């Protein structure tokens, strides 16, 4: 019997995007997931420990101690994760009986097989879900609406750039299959950026090394990506306190203002308030996504990595990839990110191809909303592993059902290239050389992109 409820967990290292679909309710399902911090946070000021969603009750944001289930992007601390998940499934958040539900959960790219086995154990042995589907966030994107602006149906060849808390991945996808041999990872994510900001501020102004929460908020409020790095750095230099770039971030003080904010020009500053001067920190921090070598990390920036990834793909498909690049993940939210990436990629795109980058209204929840569409589709039940299958064959059941990177074949499968190439030839009106294969999508209108 199919369960009526499906739980969707976009299980990120920074936040969990969680929600439910109940089959009986039809279309009035909530599009917006609940955002739950994926951490156990101890507040010394409040003398309490907050598990996940309870963090919103926190009064004193200073010197918060974080225990994160994720380490460098992979789920390693199951004790902490279970505690947070218990809260998410409880009546305080989703209020769901897991034994009567199905689950869709996201995992990191290149998740280790030993870790994947533990996902199975928790889902089936601890929470006793009826069935589940485990996948990466990027694999959900073709089912969502990120590429909607380019045509009615999602492109067959696309690249997803997922920049989150732990790292940034460039993920090329053909016909809903991730091309693992071409996936590239940049080890710069929100966590590294916040920690680098903490270091700079602690060296130059106030010691903020313990203030993860506050500095993260400062980063999200003040930082932006510059399209003219050298000019901006010159502006900051020429007039240290009074230039167009400097912003003053007023730190929260726990009697009057609970949240930090940027000082509006002309705002009165009570003498007791502490202020952070954000000058070149504003743009040198997110610059690390484009120039990780600024701090000595020996990796190319995001644009070069995208070009490297696409160059591993079949020659004749590259044009489609360059024309269908999508952005997801919280670290793509910096103002100026899109403009900077566009300008850098434009100089790397081969001259015969077009460059087109798609972004979502909400990069953090885009994968969740795409997963929502995936779950609502009637074929969802063919993609899950059931608890019976697990009890019978153990983790082999999920290894078969969720192939992933382990079963990716030889590089540059020539068959894929032929299939996709044919469909593009057909729609351009040329006679096709081979009869169409059953797995190609039917031709759509001529308004479809190439």
């Amino acid at each position: 019997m199919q369960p009526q409820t499906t739980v969707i967990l976009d299980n990120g290292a920074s936040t969990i995007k969680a929600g439910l679909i109940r089959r009986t309710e039809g279309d009035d399902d909530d599009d917006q997931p609940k955002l739950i911090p994926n951490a156990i946070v101890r507040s010394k000021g409040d003398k309490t420990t907050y598990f996940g969603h309870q963090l919103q009750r926190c009064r004193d944001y200073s010197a918060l101690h974080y225990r994160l289930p994720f380490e460098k992007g992979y789920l390693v601390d199951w004790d902490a994760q279970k505690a947070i998940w218990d809260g998410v499934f409880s009546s305080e958040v989703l209020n769901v009986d897991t034994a009567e539900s199905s689950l869709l959960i996201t995992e990191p790219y290149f998740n280790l097989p030993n870790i994947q086995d533990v996902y199975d154990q928790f889902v089936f042995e601890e929470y006793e879900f009826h069935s589940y589907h485990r996948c990466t966030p990027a694999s959900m994107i073709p089912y969502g609406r990120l590429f909607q602006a380019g045509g009615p149906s999602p492109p067959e060849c696309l690249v997803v750039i997922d920049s989150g808390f732990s790292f940034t991945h460039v993920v090329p996808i053909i016909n809903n299959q991730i091309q693992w041999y071409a996936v590239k990872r940049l080890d710069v994510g929100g966590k590294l950026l916040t920690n680098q900001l903490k270091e700079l501020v602690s060296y130059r102004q106030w010691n903020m090394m313990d203030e993860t929460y506050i500095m993260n908020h400062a980063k999200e409020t003040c930082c932006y990506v510059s399209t003219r790095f050298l000019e901006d750095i010159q502006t900051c230099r020429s007039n240290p306190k009074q230039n167009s770039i400097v912003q003053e971030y007023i730190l929260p003080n726990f009697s009057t203002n609970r949240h930090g904010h940027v000082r509006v020009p002309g705002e009165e500053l009570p003498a007791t308030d502490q202020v952070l001067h954000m000058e070149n920190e504003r743009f040198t921090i997110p610059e690390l996504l484009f120039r990780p070598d600024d701090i000595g990390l020996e990796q190319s920036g995001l644009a070069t990595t995208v070009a490297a990834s696409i160059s591993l793909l079949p020659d004749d498909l590259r044009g489609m990839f360059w024309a269908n690049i999508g952005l997801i993940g919280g670290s793509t939210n910096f103002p100026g990110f899109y403009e900077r990436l566009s300008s850098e990629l434009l100089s790397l795109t081969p001259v015969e191809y077009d460059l087109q980058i798609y972004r979502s209204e909400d990069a953090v929840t885009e994968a969740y909303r795409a997963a929502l569409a995936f779950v609502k589709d009637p074929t969802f039940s063919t993609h899950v592993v059931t608890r019976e299958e697990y009890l019978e064959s153990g983790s082999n059941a999920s290894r078969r059902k969720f192939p992933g990177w382990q079963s990716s074949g030889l590089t540059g499968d020539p068959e894929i290239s032929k299939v996709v190439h044919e469909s593009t030839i057909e729609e351009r009106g040329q006679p096709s050389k081979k009869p169409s294969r059953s797995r190609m999508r039917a031709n759509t209108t001529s308004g479809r992109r190439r």
Partner: protein
Amino acid sequence: PTRKALRKVNATKQTLAPDVIAKRTKRHLDELERSNYTEPSITLDDDDEAPISGKNRVRQIVSDKRDPNAKKKKSSTKVRTALLYRKNLATLIEESRITALPSHIPTYLTAAAPPPQVPSRLLCSVCGYKGAYKCKKCAMAYCDMSCESVHAETRCERRVI
């Protein structure tokens, strides 16, 4: 006169070996991956968690503490093992034996972005402006003389106290 010249040349050659610089950069990058800041100390324990440490080897499960009133269901053996024994990522990578896979299968280790194609630019370690010079003693960058003196007083790694 030749002897004097030789001595002068030797005096300026006190730069740091590149592997020392690489080690320092690596340590810095590892610090940037931490969840919480802890004062640098000389311990073998490289992560910064559990209030239980050192002598007391009894591990406590924090998920049971979340809701003391909840009815306790007995977890399966595998789940309990996963809850009690937390392994760090390096151990898990070793145990997964992804290094033993045939070379045509891409893994976490092979997926890292390629090395930088353009030479790095130097940024002043004190103020963030374009760096022009490197400290003679510890090879960190600075932009002008005021930043040089700040660096020498505060952060230089080879400073003589």
